[in-house]
């Protein structure tokens, strides 16, 4: 695996489905300044990507489990790997549930949500059965389809933008900015943790740190652009009142008299990005568990984890409970990594310095 491919996957994992709720998560705190606060969040996130990539570079390429063992020793590494896998597994369940529920509500009300969940679950499971390499290649191929769709979506939205909605630009309380950064903290996290995971797998690592940091910046830039366009088209009040303001944004756009709305562009995008993130999350969890329990071979590993994932995905009965589930994964399981990664980095640095002195 080349570091550029890893960077693409990190980009895909960071953008994921984040562009659907991000504007609504920031606007309550910083209103029209949301777009640059979002950019700031991702710029800050790149510090963690730098650390994660540096950590990955310190271990021989190939096995994430072995790399963590090298950093933390045999016992702590198991705790870390379990936590890491749990974060990804719950995140993948949450996204599976979220995508199916939202699609059921906006596009297929007559089709039972369970059918969509099971169909979507099958794709994720199928990817894992083929392994991480296939997952990476699938993600790269789908990304090439998703990027023009996002670009088309943004361009067609820009027509309806009222740029005055983005003013005032800097009239925000610093406390609120800090709060907004904290609450949007989970959004760069998949990119950071994916960078940690992939940096241990990449063979060609000469530019890995820069490639990973740039990919997070690129994702942050794209997401901030989407936030800016959403606020410019819908205004802060409307943006705030939705969980996923990108959907009313799409519904409000008309292209000539050809298509009444551009939902047609957003529906596939929602599914593609949902699949990309969910599959990456599930496969990462599966690979981590594989490193933790080597005796658990395929297909039993996929089937076992898949069953847990499906049950977790079915549990939420509406969008509110799905969002709550994703919050559990984001805040209780994800946010501690903002402390854990620097701690491991310092620990590894100290160990390295100690070895050099010795």
């Amino acid at each position: 695996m080349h570091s550029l491919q890893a960077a693409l996957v990190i980009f895909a994992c960071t953008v994921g489905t984040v562009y659907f709720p991000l504007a609504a998560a920031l606007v309550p705190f910083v209103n029209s300044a949301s777009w640059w606060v979002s950019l700031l969040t991702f710029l800050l996130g790149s510090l963690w990507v730098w650390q994660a990539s540096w950590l990955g570079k310190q271990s021989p390429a190939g096995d994430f489990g072995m790399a963590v063992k090298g950093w933390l020793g045999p016992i702590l590494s198991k705790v870390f790997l379990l936590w890491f896998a749990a974060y990804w597994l719950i995140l993948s369940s949450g996204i599976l549930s979220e995508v199916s529920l939202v699609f059921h509500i906006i596009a297929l009300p007559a089709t039972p949500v369970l059918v969509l969940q099971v169909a979507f679950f099958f794709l994720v499971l199928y990817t894992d059965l083929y392994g991480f390499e296939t997952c990476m290649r699938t993600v790269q191929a789908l990304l090439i389809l998703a990027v023009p769709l996002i670009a088309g979506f943004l361009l067609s939205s820009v027509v309806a933008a009222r740029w005055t909605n983005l003013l005032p630009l800097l009239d925000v309380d610093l406390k609120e900015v800090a709060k907004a950064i904290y609450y949007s903290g989970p959004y760069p996290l998949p990119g950071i943790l994916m960078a940690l995971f992939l940096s241990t797998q990449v063979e060609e690592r000469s530019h890995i740190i820069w490639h990973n940091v740039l990919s997070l910046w690129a994702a942050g830039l794209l997401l901030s652009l989407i936030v800016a366009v959403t606020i410019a088209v819908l205004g802060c009040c409307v943006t705030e009142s939705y969980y996923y303001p990108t959907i009313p944004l799409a519904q409000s756009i008309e292209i000539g008299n050809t298509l009444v709305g551009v939902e047609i562009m957003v529906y596939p995008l929602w599914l593609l990005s949902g699949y990309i993130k969910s599959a990456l999350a599930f496969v990462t969890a599966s690979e981590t568990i594989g490193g933790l329990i080597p005796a658990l071979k395929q297909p039993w590993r996929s089937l076992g984890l898949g069953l847990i994932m499906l049950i977790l995905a079915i549990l939420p009965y509406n969008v509110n409970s799905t969002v709550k589930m994703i919050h559990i994964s984001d805040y209780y399981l994800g946010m501690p990594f903002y402390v854990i990664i620097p701690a491991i980095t310092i620990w590894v640095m100290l160990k390295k310095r100690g070895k050099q002195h010795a």
Partner: protein
Amino acid sequence: MRRERKKRAIVKPRPVGEIQKPPTDGEISGHFERDMQALQELLANSTDLRTSIIRTQDGKRVALFFYAGLVNQQILNHNVIAPIQTHKAPLTVEDLLERIIKAPNGGPESSLESLGTSLAKGAVVILFEGLDQALTVTMPQFFDRGIERSQSEDVLIGPHQSFSEDLNKNLALVRRYLKSPRLKIKNMEIGRISKTELAIVYIEGIAQEKLVREVEERLNRIDIDFIIGASYISEFLEDQPLSIMPQLKLTERPDRLIAALCEGRVAIMAGGDPTCLIVPFFMPEAMQAAEDYYEKPLIATFLRWLRLFSAALSVFLPGTWITLVSFHHGIIPPTLFTSIVAGREDVPFPTIIEAFLLLIAFDIVIEASTRLPSAVGQAIGIVGAIILGQSAVQASLISPTMTIVVALAGLAVYTLPSPSSVSAIRVLKYLVLAISSVLGLFGTVWALIFITINAASMRSFGYPVLFPVAPLNVRGWMDIFLKLPNTWLPQRPHFLAAENERRLNQGVTPYPGKGEPRDA
């Protein structure tokens, strides 16, 4: 009659691929009558076997065995029979080979089984009284069509030659294009009964050795009674033979083969088949046509995008149409939707049934016109397209919009120059249609992801078939999604020819360099 039946019943059927053991110990003994009898028993029950006994000047008997039709009898008379009959001195194997028989390919042989095999390959077996070795000499006569235009990969501009069923002629054609001693050809034989000749063709120093070795190993593993040509063995070489997507490139055009060899690929050619296999194959290359390299770069780029769009249209149009009309009609502008509904007013079937029926009818027409002789095939195409379609619409069995959708999807696939990709797409559109008709747009995207996962999991001789899309290689795009001028493509594909990448010397441009005069 009864006795005859009884006699037949006790004859044990010979297992396929097994040659009946001769009565001797399997070797030429030097005893003329016994060896004759052994050979005749080995080759019994073949009416096309010709045996003739001649005598030399000193009265020694010489027996000739050959299969009619495989041997050029005029050359046999002139180069073998006449010299032997006029020879006086006692015969030795060396004399015969070096001075008497005028045939380039010959050699002594003492095993009866090998003699049988040589005979089947078109050799003449010559048995001499008093010699404990027989001779085999080859003077083949094969009936082969000439070098003709390619049926499946025809072009308007560029060479029109295509391969034929004669392996030697095909190899000579390759050598005529590539006049380099680095062009290597390794011969093999596959098929316990058919003994089909195969050739592995590559350019030394460009093709990676591990790829050549892998091809050889995979071919060596094939143990089967018979094969008919190269395309027959493709499923033995593919990593996922059950997949409908192609994993090997098939071509019958020498220019395409040469281009592939110069990129570092390896070709497999076989006797009896004008199609040769090229490995590895990357799926996005299905958009490349031989003509692209004789066209202007921008026009070739446009055509490649047109093919890509057509392929996508063919796979997804029927499914997406069903999705829009049956599930998400709110997206369609009201005026358009009204005209669609008006067209379907008298149609008794649901949209999905209508689409399936029409797609199957379309594929039946295509299949029939392919199998029928070309003149009749064309007529069937016209009948199918105009009469069947128009009559079905007039009889209110199908709607006019569905006819347009299915016709467009059905025809669009034929813009692809790769026949194996065309077949895959023809099947895939049914999968997309089936899932879309159940799950709407969710199903269409589901099918797209499912197809992508499958394609991403596939490898062709160890190389991912989605290259250069996944793994992403922007340089690889320059000759896949674009067709840049050759002066802008100085390197071979990195993946294939890592050790010898440069194909164009630096500084080679069509325009003069700095300071050089621009006028003629």
